[in-house]
């Protein structure tokens, strides 16, 4: 793990993540930048933070920015990260909203977004491959992985229903064994 980032680092990094994700795939971009590029977190810490931020109320990505900001600099860190994540997008959204309410047209960027969205799905899939290589070793983790995908992705069960069934099983499986230190 590298040195502790400064407040400006936090703000700039989350700004970078936000702007990079213009076709979607904010979670995948977060991993790409926070884990792969900056090495601020390990995969395991990052992945558990992502799911905790989903369980807690609030926008997942804002929550993750708070979580990472607090980890390095407490409340000022959280503010810097959230500020970085939202400032430029808020200005962009306001400009688009102004245009929309003035001219009654949704800005015509549909084609670009369609292409970028296809790549964002690809980045999300590649995150599954990269993180899965490490944590899907063994039968039980693979079963947990498949079960939650089927429940949440295919059957579209609510997140809380899936996790209240599977998370206790996962934690029992993962509990450190006392005989193997």
């Amino acid at each position, binding site marked *: 793990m590298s040195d502790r980032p400064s407040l400006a680092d936090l703000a700039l990094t989350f700004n970078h993540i936000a702007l990079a994700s213009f*076709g979607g795939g904010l979670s995948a971009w977060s991993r790409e930048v926070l884990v792969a590029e900056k090495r601020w977190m390990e995969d395991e810490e990052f992945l558990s933070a992502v799911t905790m931020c989903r369980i807690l109320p609030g926008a997942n990505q804002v929550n993750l920015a708070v979580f990472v900001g607090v980890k390095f600099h407490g409340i000022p860190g959280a503010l810097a990260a959230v500020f970085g994540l939202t400032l430029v*997008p808020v200005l962009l959204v*306001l400009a688009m909203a102004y245009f929309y309410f003035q001219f009654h047209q949704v800005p015509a960027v549909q*084609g670009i977004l369609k292409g970028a969205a296809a790549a964002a799905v690809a980045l999300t899939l590649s995150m599954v491959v990269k993180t899965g290589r490490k944590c899907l070793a063994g039968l039980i983790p693979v079963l947990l992985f498949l079960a939650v995908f089927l429940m949440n992705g295919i059957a579209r069960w609510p997140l809380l229903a899936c996790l209240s069934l599977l998370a206790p099983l*996962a934690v029992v499986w*993962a509990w450190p064994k006392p005989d193997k230190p």
Partner: protein
Amino acid sequence: MNIRTLTQICILFSSLSILSIGGGNTVLPEMHRKAVDSYHWLSDKQFADVFAISQAAPGPSILIVTIIGYKAAGIPGAILATIAMMLPAGVLVYLVSRVWEKAKDSAFRKAIEKGLAPLTVGLILASGWVMSKAADHDWRAYVLTAVCTAIFTTTKINPLFIVAAAGLVGWLGWI
């Protein structure tokens, strides 16, 4: 400046912030009910368009509240709605992450980190699946996704170039 509207914005979005368990999109129906049916800040059609705009913009998709606040009460409304939507949930995350930091070396934290990892990877795959459904992918978009996935997993090219190239492909109307 309309104090009554600003108060409504503050109360509505800060309560939605706390209710949005599982992410911002879970409270969209309630947001629609209040903003369109109760307060008449915008029409049904406008709500749908504004949702599309917030999805298209970079950054967290929850910024739909910025646009609704803007329509209801101008720039002050936009700022207030954005802060109200993030602050209550943010405080909760702050408290949880403090506890989490204290539990750094506990068996409890280790078990959660290890146990949640395969579940998170499954949830990420699920969100990729849902994203491609929502984007109404046809076979050409799936081919593009497959090519990009291969590039992302086997090369070290900066993903931003690939996303930009894919955007160009879309702009040219090839998918």
